[in-house]
Structures are given as C-alpha cells and as structure tokens.
C-alpha cells in the first residue's frame, strides 16, 4: 500500500528535525566531501582546486611520520581495546557480586569517562613527569636512585598512553557489560551450578555468549574512541618524544595547522575515513541480508 507524502512525513516532526538534518548534512556530508575533494589537490596553506590525482596519497605513504602514526594506532588500539574489554568484564563481574556501596564504586569507575581526555591526559602527564610526579615524589622520600619516566622515552611513551586509555575507558566498558550481565537470568546460573559447571566455565561458555550485544556495543564505542584519539596524545606527549607517539588524527591536525599542507592532511583524513566506511558497509550488508532472509520467511 502506497502511503501519501503527508502521512509518511509528519510536518511537526520534520520541522523539529530540520536543524539536526542541516547540521548533519552540512558538517558531515559536505565537510567530508570537501575533505576528499581537496585530498586530490595540491592545496598548501589554503585550499585550491589544482588537481594532482593521487600524488598526495603517494607522498603520504612515503612519509615516515605517517607510517609511525599508523603503526601507533594499531598498537594503541589493539592494546587498549583488548585490555579495556578484559578489565571491564572483570570489573563488571566484581560489581555483580552484590557488593556493598555498589553505586559509589560504579561512580568511581565511571568517573574517568566523564572527564575530558585533556584533563585525563594532563593528570597522567603530571603523574608521569619526572620532575613533578611519581619519580620526584619517590626521590623526595629518600629513594634517590628511583627512576620512572615513561613519557620521555620514545620506547615507553606509547605504553603510558595505553595505560591512560585503559584508565579512561574500562569504566564505561564495565557499565555496559554490567548491564548485560544483569540481563542474564538468575536461573541460568542456578542451572549451571546444578550441572556442576565451574564458575569460570559458566562465564566463558554460557554467559559471555549471551552478552554478544553488550560486547558489540562496548567494542564499537572503544573503536570510535581509538580512531579519533587526539586530545589524550596532545595532552600527554604532544606526539613525542620526537614522533614516537604520533597518531593519525594528530598527524592530520599538524599537517593542516603547523605544516600548512592541507592537501596531504586531507589525504590522511580520507585514509582514516576509509576503514570506517569499510566497516559501515560491511555491517550494512549483513543487516540487509538478514532483513531479506526474515522478509522471505514472512
């Protein structure tokens, strides 16, 4: 049955969503379109329309700074997401033991997430700064040979970022997984106990598979956080020492603002967009196929 335009688009609803539609189309679609467009030009300080084909991309992938950034994001992403998931799940299991003061603990664990990454980064930078933080404190206590300054060493700075990322992200992972855990019927636990299945096995084989949705949500949130990680890096290391902790987002901003190379910056931004588009397309395909199969069944 074909419904009329008026029925399908309720006027007040359309008017109400117009600002949001304008912002979404204006900022995201048009903005992204120009980014892609300029990535094919030789723009320097200001955008131009002098098209040079894929030259910017070739230069980008020859730039060691970009290669380091890509390496870093993989390392940072894999480390922080996997640790976040494990820590988040363990915390959720801990919270699920009917502990006292649960609300208090939940607030404490969620608190880092509520703070700006700039603040998180700054706090961690102070703690890890050799002249202000942990090292200085230990030396003042009399342990003069104590040395702990991960941020100033190119080999260890990325680990400090990972730790800060975990500190910031595991709380929200816990909150999502805790909700999933609470959704599991208590009788499942009882049945597993009567069946003589050890607790860890029940978690692994029965409960975790039942929480697929919660895991997926937490995972997507973490991924989004990783792809756009910028302020944490800026606040803690500024991409340094040297280029040791540079990330794609940091690289893009620096190219555009500091090195005044809009064309190549846009090329890098487009490269960041690519994996997101691939994932979106893939999940859209899965959803479409599932809908079609259900439609065929009905």
């Amino acid at each position, binding site marked *: 049955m074909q419904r009329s335009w008026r029925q399908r688009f309720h006027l007040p609803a359309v008017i109400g969503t117009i600002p949001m539609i304008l912002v979404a189309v204006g900022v995201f679609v048009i903005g992204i379109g120009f980014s892609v467009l300029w990535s094919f030009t030789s723009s320097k300080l200001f955008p131009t329309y002098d098209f040079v084909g894929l030259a910017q991309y070739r230069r980008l992938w020859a730039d060691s700074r970009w290669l380091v950034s890509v390496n870093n994001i993989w390392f940072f992403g894999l480390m922080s997401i996997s640790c976040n998931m494990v820590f988040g799940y363990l915390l959720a299991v801990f919270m699920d033991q009917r502990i006292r003061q649960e609300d208090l603990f939940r607030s404490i664990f969620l608190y880092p997430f509520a703070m700006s990454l700039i603040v998180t980064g700054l706090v961690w930078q102070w703690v890890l700064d050799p002249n202000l933080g942990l090292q200085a404190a230990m030396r003042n206590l009399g342990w003069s040979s104590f040395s702990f300054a991960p941020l100033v060493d190119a080999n260890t700075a990325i680990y400090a970022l990972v730790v800060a990322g975990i500190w910031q992200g595991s709380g929200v992972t816990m909150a999502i997984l805790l909700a999933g855990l609470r959704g599991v*019927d208590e*009788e*499942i636990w*009882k*049945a*597993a*106990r*009567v*069946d*003589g*299945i*050890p607790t860890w*096995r029940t978690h692994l*084989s*029965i409960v975790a*598979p*039942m929480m697929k949705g919660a895991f997926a949500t937490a995972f997507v949130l973490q991924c989004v956080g990783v792809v756009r990680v910028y302020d944490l890096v800026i606040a803690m290391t500024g991409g340094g020492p040297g280029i040791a902790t540079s990330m794609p987002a940091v690289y893009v901003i620096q190219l555009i603002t500091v090195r005044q190379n809009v064309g190549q910056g846009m090329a890098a931004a487009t490269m960041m967009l690519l994996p997101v588009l691939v994932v979106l397309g893939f999940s859209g395909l899965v959803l479409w196929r599932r809908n079609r199969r259900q439609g065929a069944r009905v």
Partner: protein
Amino acid sequence: MAQNGTSVSIQDLSLNFGAVSVLKTLNLDVAEGEFVVLLGPSGCGKSTLLNCVAGLLDISEGRIFIKGKNVTWEEPKDRGIGMVFQSYALYPQMTVEKNLSFGLRVAGLPKEEIAKRIARAAEILQIEPLLQRKPSALSGGQRQRVAIGRALVRDVDVFLFDEPLSNLDAKLRSELRVEIKLLHRKLQNTMIYVTHDQIEAMTLADRIAVMKGGVIQQLDAPQTIYNRPVNRFVAGFLGSPAMNFIDGRLEKDKGDWYFIVEDVRIPLATYAFEKEPVPGPAVFGMRPEHVAFNSGTGWPFTADANVEVVEPMGSDTLVWLKLGKQNFTVRVTSERTPRNADAVSIGFDPMRASLFDAETGNRL
C-alpha cells in the same frame, strides 16, 4: 507406590536472611519414589525450600539428607539431584544436544556414555527431532521438555521442579502435567515439585505439603487435604470455587451440638470432631460442591434461600445465594441452572463440613 526407605530428609531446617526468618525449623521426609508437591501462595518459602534442598542456598540451621547421605554442605552437583526451572534456563547459544551434554562433558564422562544417556532421555521425552535446534527455535512446551531432559541425563535419584509449568499457557500446562505424571510412573524417581497451582498439586502429588509463612501447615494425601484441612488457611487455599466460611458459634442443646448463626441452626450430630468441643465462636466451612440443590428434604440440614447471582462456567454453574444474612455458594450441574431471584432449597450433610476455631483457625 514403592515406599521403601527415605529418599530426602529435611531436619529442623531454618533459613534467615538477616533478621527475616524465611523457613522455620522445618521437617520433611520424602519416601523413595514419592511425588511430593510443595504448595502455597507467593512468598510462603516453597521455592526457597527447594533451593535449599538443591544446595543453591546455604541454610542457617538444620540438616539435609539425600539417600541417607548428609548433603547439608555439599555442592549442588554432588547431591544427586536434577532441577527443572520455571524459565527453563536453557543455555541459549547451544543446541538442544549441547544443552543436555554440557554438564556431562564438563564432568569428563566418556563420549559413548554421554551419547547413550542423551539417546535415552531424548527417547523418553520424544525430543529426538529437536536435538540439533537452538532453544530459540523451540516452543515453550518443547523447551520445558528439554529442561527436564537436562535433569534426566544427570542420572540422579531426586528430581526438583521449581514451578516448571508456570510460563506455559493453560492448554500446554495440562498436557505437560499429564506428561510429568507419566514420566514419574516410568522412572519411579523421587520428585519434589513446587507450585502455586492447586490443580497441579492435586493431580500430581502423592502427598501435598501446604506451606504458609515458611511453615508446613499440612502434609497429607491430596484427598485428605481437600476433605479434612487442618486449618482455615488450608481450607481456603485449596478448592476452586473456594470453600464457604460462615462465622457463628457452637452450642450444646440436649446433648447435641449445633452451629448457630442468626436464626440458622445446623445440627452437627454427624460431624466428626477432632476433640471434645467447647461452646463458643467458631467458623463453619462447606465446599460448594458438597451442597445438594433442590433435592428434597432427606438431608440432616435443609434450608430455603433466594438466588442472588448465577455464574455459568460451562461444565457447571456457581450459584450465589443468601443463607440467613450470609453469602453462600453452591455448585450446580449446568442442566439444573436456576434463574436469578428463584426461590430454591439447599441441603447438606455436616459430615462433609469443616469446623474451625474462630480464634486460632485450627480444625475442631
């Protein structure tokens, strides 16, 4: 029924949650092969008691024996019990076969043994065609059958059922009720079954334990509980439509006892008192189906009354009338349904009545 020896013995069991006492020094012996139903309203502690027997709750005091072995502090899996839950509690990501075999595989049983047990359970419950399906692809009745199968493959002596039919619709419920009864006859296992449904209790049980407030009120065969309830709570909880209760008093006149309410005098010559009664306030209970309707004067007690409301229920009809100033219901076969405001006569034999102390509610 094979009544050789005790299968489950609960001795002086108490359970407290903080200051709240949920079960109070409870004693219950279940014979081998017996089907005992724990019946009671919500919050009476019946499910809690079952969880204690299963070992899912730690008890505060007392002891639990299963097959003569003290299992008070044993893990559930070592107690020799299988349990079936209201929500079925199947593992949703596993096929039916995996659901049945998971516990056995974790316990490290040999493959052939597992296959043998699953084949047997599947045959008994007729779920062979479902073995490769996931629980989400099963109907409620099928899921509950699988849940019973999971208890079956454990090869245990005692089956515990925690309101297993409550999530099913009325038709399926009556079907599965019969199936559980057949299963019990086939397996001859001890079964303890928790329900709030009196029909389930009456039809399934060898003995019913009616519970209220963490205490077993009466433990007896279904017919005994129905016909000779020990107190007013049991009398009112069983039976649908509910028993008629009339507040009045007992009096002795020329050596015979009468129950008197306003101008109605019910002679109690045929009533079997538990002990020698004393005059005073009492409650007279009479089941609606034990009252004769328009059937002459050959009854120890007869009275005339006016019909107030008629409730046809298909198989029979419930007639509300006034006996003196008291509401009184009578169950009538549907062919003899009267009309509103008809003048009718009723009669009954007080032998089938139940008299209760007005204060304590205990049977007189």
